[in-house]
């Protein structure tokens, strides 16, 4: 009997007891980083994922556009109370708008770093490998570019930091930021192809990298560099679209002039900025209303005005049961809306496949023109290329005044104006304080831009708090 008990006990306990395998588990349906990075498919999947955060609501889907509302082109409109402080330079570091896109920019950087660390070891087609690595360098450079123009120096997280698990770093200097951006964009320009086939439109190519690099050189007042790199773009397969409006129509938005745009596809991954910039009764959220001062900037008969804004009297085909609908003054508090970001589906409703333009060849023409003018050369050819496309009379011996006018009308609403003004103010070409002191009506009263404090936005307070003293605030905040 005693033996029986013993057997029973032992068999019961030992049955499961020695079997630790019950604790083994695997990540069903997911890969681990040690299993991933096997082949070209993995490399491409990782490259595709780098682009994904760009279209997020808290990034180019909306939040990134808030950094241009201080400009004299637009009234913030909308119903985000915190935007008022941004627009009027009364924000403090706790303003949530400063924070929204920060983490998403670093997510793109993190995914780019993962590609740069792992893809070199994958055995795959070399040209595909170059493209993937080039995309990673471009996107990382692009993100540090946006961080740099908005906040100045921010933590530079590169491959070595990822491998060392080191993320809480102090701010890099402006010079370090610019050197990194220049390095990334130069490598990207080397690795990326000239252009892409129809299935890959929207991926970065040589033109994207060189165009952005030219812009960086212009900001650095490296005019020779800007001219040289910019000219490579102008000589490349990136001609201006015949029609300015082609850049803002769903069917033609990926034409060669569009050097880089955040892609949107209805029902898949959508760009909410389309909704944000549309009047409320038309199904939008009514943000970013152009002010009269911008409308007045357009030359008489400039067709770009019609593509840039909705104005009273315009007839717009909203599709579906609404059909052709007049734009009326009461749809907007300024009387206008931007038009570059919306189009309509035949069956009604906003077409959510409308991209978000980031960099166009027209911009590069004006970058080269500005570099030439500011370095004492003649920029007429480049500025006139842009003007003539829209039927404007050519200029001779164009000045910075002409250039400033041309950039304002060509790129209105494309998130450039505030940064342009800062660049020119730093160079003593314009007086940004005076420009922002101008009374543009009850919605856009005079605002006090403090030099140099407002050249940069504040580093988000939340990041400063989380860094435990590592990250320091920009001067004046």
């Amino acid at each position, binding site marked *: 009997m005693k033996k*029986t*008990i013993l057997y029973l006990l032992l068999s*019961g*306990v030992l*049955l*499961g*007891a020695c079997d630790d395998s*019950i604790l*083994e*588990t695997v*990540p*069903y*349906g*997911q*890969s*681990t*980083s040690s299993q*991933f990075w096997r082949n070209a498919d993995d490399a491409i*999947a*990782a*490259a595709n*994922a780098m682009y*994904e955060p*760009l*279209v997020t609501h808290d990034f180019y889907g909306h939040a990134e556009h808030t950094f241009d509302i201080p400009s004299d082109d637009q009234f913030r409109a909308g*119903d*985000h*109370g*915190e935007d*008022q*402080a941004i627009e*009027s330079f*009364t924000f*403090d570091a*706790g303003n*949530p708008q400063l924070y929204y896109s920060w*983490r998403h920019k*670093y*997510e793109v*950087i*993190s995914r780019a770093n993962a590609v740069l660390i792992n893809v070199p070891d994958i055995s795959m087609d070399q040209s595909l490998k170059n493209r993937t690595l080039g995309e990673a360098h471009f996107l990382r450079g692009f993100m540090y570019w946006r961080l740099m123009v908005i906040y100045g120096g921010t933590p530079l997280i590169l491959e070595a930091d990822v491998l060392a698990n080191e993320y809480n770093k102090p701010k890099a200097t402006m010079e370090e930021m610019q050197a990194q951006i220049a390095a990334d964009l130069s490598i990207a320009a080397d690795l990326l192809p000239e252009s892409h086939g129809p299935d*890959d*439109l929207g991926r970065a190519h040589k033109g994207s990298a060189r165009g952005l690099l030219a812009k960086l050189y212009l900001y650095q007042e490296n005019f020779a560099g800007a001219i040289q790199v910019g000219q490579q773009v102008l000589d490349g397969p990136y001609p201006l679209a015949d029609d300015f409006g082609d850049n803002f129509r769903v069917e033609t938005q*990926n034409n060669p002039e569009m050097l880089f745009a955040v*892609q*949107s*596809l209805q*029902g898949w991954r959508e760009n909410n900025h389309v909704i944000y910039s549309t009047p409320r*009764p038309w*199904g939008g*959220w*009514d943000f970013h209303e152009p002010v009269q001062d911008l409308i007045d900037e357009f030359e008489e008969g400039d067709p770009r005005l019609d593509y840039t804004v909705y104005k009273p009297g315009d007839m717009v085909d909203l599709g579906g049961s609404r059909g052709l609908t007049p734009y009326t003054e009461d749809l907007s508090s300024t009387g206008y809306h931007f038009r570059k970001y919306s189009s309509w589906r035949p069956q009604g409703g906003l077409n959510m*496949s409308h991209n978000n333009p980031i960099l166009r060849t027209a911009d590069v023409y004006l970058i080269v023109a500005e570099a030439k003018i500011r370095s004492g050369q003649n920029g007429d050819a480049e500025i006139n290329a842009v003007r003539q496309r829209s039927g404007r009379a050519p200029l001779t011996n164009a000045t910075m005044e002409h250039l400033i006018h041309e950039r304002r009308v060509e790129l209105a609403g494309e998130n450039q104006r505030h940064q342009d003004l800062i660049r020119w103010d730093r160079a003593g070409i314009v007086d940004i304080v005076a420009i922002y002191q101008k009374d543009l009506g009850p919605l856009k009263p005079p605002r006090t831009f403090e030099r140099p404090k407002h050249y940069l936005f504040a580093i988000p*307070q*939340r*990041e400063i*708090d*989380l860094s*435990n003293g590592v*990250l320091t605030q920009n001067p004046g905040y």
Partner: protein
Amino acid sequence: MNKTLPIERAMRRCLFAFQLLALLAVCLPLTAVSAANGEAVRDVTIRGTILDETGQPLPGATVTVTGSSAGTVSDIDGNFSLTVPDDATLVVSFIGYATQTIQVGNQTEFTIQMTPDETSLTEVLVVGYGTQEKRDVTGAVSSVKGTAIQNLPVSGAAQALQGRAAGVNVVRNGGAPGNQGSIRIRGTGTLNNADPLIIIDGVPGGNLNDVNPNNIESIEILKDASASAIYGTRAANGVVIVTTKRGDFDQPLKFELNGYTGVSNAIKTIDVLEAPDLALLKRERYTNDGLAINPIWENPAYQTQQTNWQEELLGQGTTQNVDLTLTGGNKNSSFMLSGGYFEEKGMITNSNFRRLSFRLNSDHKINDRFKIGQNLQLVSIDQVSPNTLSAQTGVLWSAIRFHPGLPVQNPDGSYSSSQISGEFGDINNPIFTQENLDNNNTSHKLLGNVQAEYELLEGLKVRANFGLEGAISDGSNFNIIVNDQIRANPRNSLSRSYNEYYSVLAEYFVSYDKVFADLHKVNFVGGYTTQTFNSDGFSASKLDFIDESFDQRFLDVGQTLNSINGGKSYDALASYFGRVAYDYDERYLVTATFRSDGSSKFAPGNRWGYFPAFSLGWRVSEEDFFQNIGFISNLKVTGGWGSLGNQNVPGLQYLALISSGRRYSFGGNQTVGAAQTRIPNLNITWESAQMTNFGLDIGFLENRLLANFNYFIKNTKDMLIAPPTIGSIGTAQIPNQNIGELRNQGLEMELVFRETKGKLFYSVSGNASFIQNEVTQLADGNFIGSRLYGRSSQELSRTYEGFPIASFYGWRADGIYQSNEEIQSDANIANYPRRTAGLIQPGDVRFIDLNNDGLIDETDREVIGNPHPKVVYGLNAELGYGNFDLSLFFLGNAGFDIYNADRMQGIDPTYPFNMYAETINRWNGQGSTNEIPRMTTKRDNLNHRTSDMFLERGDFFRLKNMVLGYTLPEMLTSRIGVTRARFYVTGQNVFILTGYSGMDPELGYTDGNLQLNADFAQYPQARSWTIGTTITF
């Protein structure tokens, strides 16, 4: 569109479940039960007198006969008479006295002396892998009897437990139907999942909402380490053991029918501005700012009061329950069979909870040594929950803010919309939202086990327990096309999700009970257990349904495929456990427990954890020297220490996971990317909690007054926290890491007094817990943030080292600047550029410059409030007189703060929303108010930043339940074969005393444990009245 269809659909699902249950009920090996009917017997008439312990007659005592419906009650002189068979067994009972069983035999005259009930000491408690008599327990265990929570109009036992036991805080997370709240035993034990382990009839891991509360025999709560260490792995947050009712052997068939029905209504709404006042204040904003008034506020069309949106949204809810329980047993088998239906429809349209439940418990003696028992619980739950947590889309939040000058529906039948103007906010019409909500979650669940016990030698038993817990969950969400509301949805969509979950439990253990030489009582239990957890599911979503009729809301109809996802997970636990209890002469008690656990959640090498515990007890009142101290009838002191584990975090965190499904498009072509979704933590392992407990049990007046005190210190170490993450890491998930320490310490007391005087019985009991929570260590001394509030992403709560979890964090305000002189001379803003720039004006809030640098910025914030109550208490009074019974249950929380975020935004004029009615008392001139800032469209001074202006005391005392019952006299009911028939009225949340200005001071958690008692306009609890009956026959 046919609006009744979703209900029909739900009914059909319920019907299916009913058929399933019925089938099971028939097919299951139902124990054949027949009341033992022996040979012919002779009837005799017996007489007796019932006396109390002092020899006085005891009127009102119940005398029943086992196995028959015969019975009577003693008269005013304690006398009774009854005609019974001569082999009958009498059962004499009276509340507060021990029940006596007497064989009739040849005797016809009886004198029965009753003795006061000491059940509270000899009471048997379920303590995990066995039972212990209460007097032998050396750990901290609270017990709630099923009778205390029976027929309360609540969806689950968790809600009913609120305030019933010291140290057990049930935090109500709003009043949505089926929302059971969060149980916190002895404080919030960790920053991650702090829910206790729920064990239902020996199967760990179930859900309290799945049990029909009327099936519950008792709920034991193991609070300290010594009591709960037997469940080491998952016991760090305490253990709740639910034991359901069972049949008795040799018991005739007994039916019990419970039914109740009632209504519920809102207790309070927020007073908001009416349309004319709203327009007045909106205009004043522009005038104050020197801006042109937006013409919409001059338009008379929107200045007539039309709708109180909260009253439109909050209607009358209903609650219904019916259940039938059958119990019985013969010599070898006994059973309990029960089925029930509970339905709660909330105050808000389309917020429902329905439960169809079925239970079969049975016990069988195969022979003298071999016993088999079984439990089976089948439930089908259907739940619809509205969004009441978002401060951007929540329906109640929206109702407070939607324009009061708009009608619910326009004359043409369409719903009014804030598309009219940007000044009306980005809110959809809340009635439109709620009426079109089509979001059903249905689950069919099974929980069952089979236990076998074989007695090898006297006192030595080998036992095995095999359990299965499973659920099939089905979620369905249809979003209609919304064109005419500001938050439009241009394409309709249907998402369906389907998930199967099951857990398999195997336990093998031996137990040994023996008393040696009448002095040494030994109890041992030890064994091995494994439990595996499998989950497998998929979901799909389609867009573009041409027809939105309810009968077309199926995936087949959608024109465009949106997504298909699916995945699987597996986790497992393997454990060894043992417990020895030794009792010397009923005076000295020792318990030692050990458990070793392996969990698949951690990396190989870090999987096993070891959890020892011991405790000692001394029953002082059993000592000879104590026998002369008459007024103290019982005295026991206990002390213990132990270590417990927590592994309640997601698995596989030691791996760097790469997930696909990152969507983007190139040139209009869909592409999918893959990215790392989580940073790995190779060293992740157990979190542990060390708990020390001291207890004192004391009884006075022959145990009519019983008191229990416990003092504990619980230190949580290696706390699993996903630490604060600097944004430069990106958006990948941060793994839990074993950092952080936490301390909870506190005092718990429970008091019970009961007395019987003639027909009158009364008892008063109370419990209170005083618990302090402090985070003693966090990563790098940094804080952990929490959910942000509303459009402006305002921070409300932070968890800091040296403070309680989820402390409120912000600025300190000191009234309102009344004049420019006050502003210019204020030292708080002496160096503040905003002052010199003229951005601060009379009517703005004076914030305190905490760091004395003469300006107000982010460094002037500090911890401003504590959301944890200093004391949580419950008071229960029961009164019986003859056939009437009355019970009152009060609940209170005191010494805590609420952050009224809803009011913070509600009086903020910079939002395009309606405002609280009190905003009419805004500052509009020197001396006008020191409370409500001026009207402005600007946030120049951030008057409505997170500050102590919006911090309120949350203390409340509420009459949670009130039950008045009447039991029909037995002489009436017995004629129609009814043993007992009781009718009652129950009130829930009958009244509340609170200084809190919001809808309900019970706000609960809004972000795991990291945010507590912040007002987001949560679904408030309702006041409800129900009537019901319990009939036994």
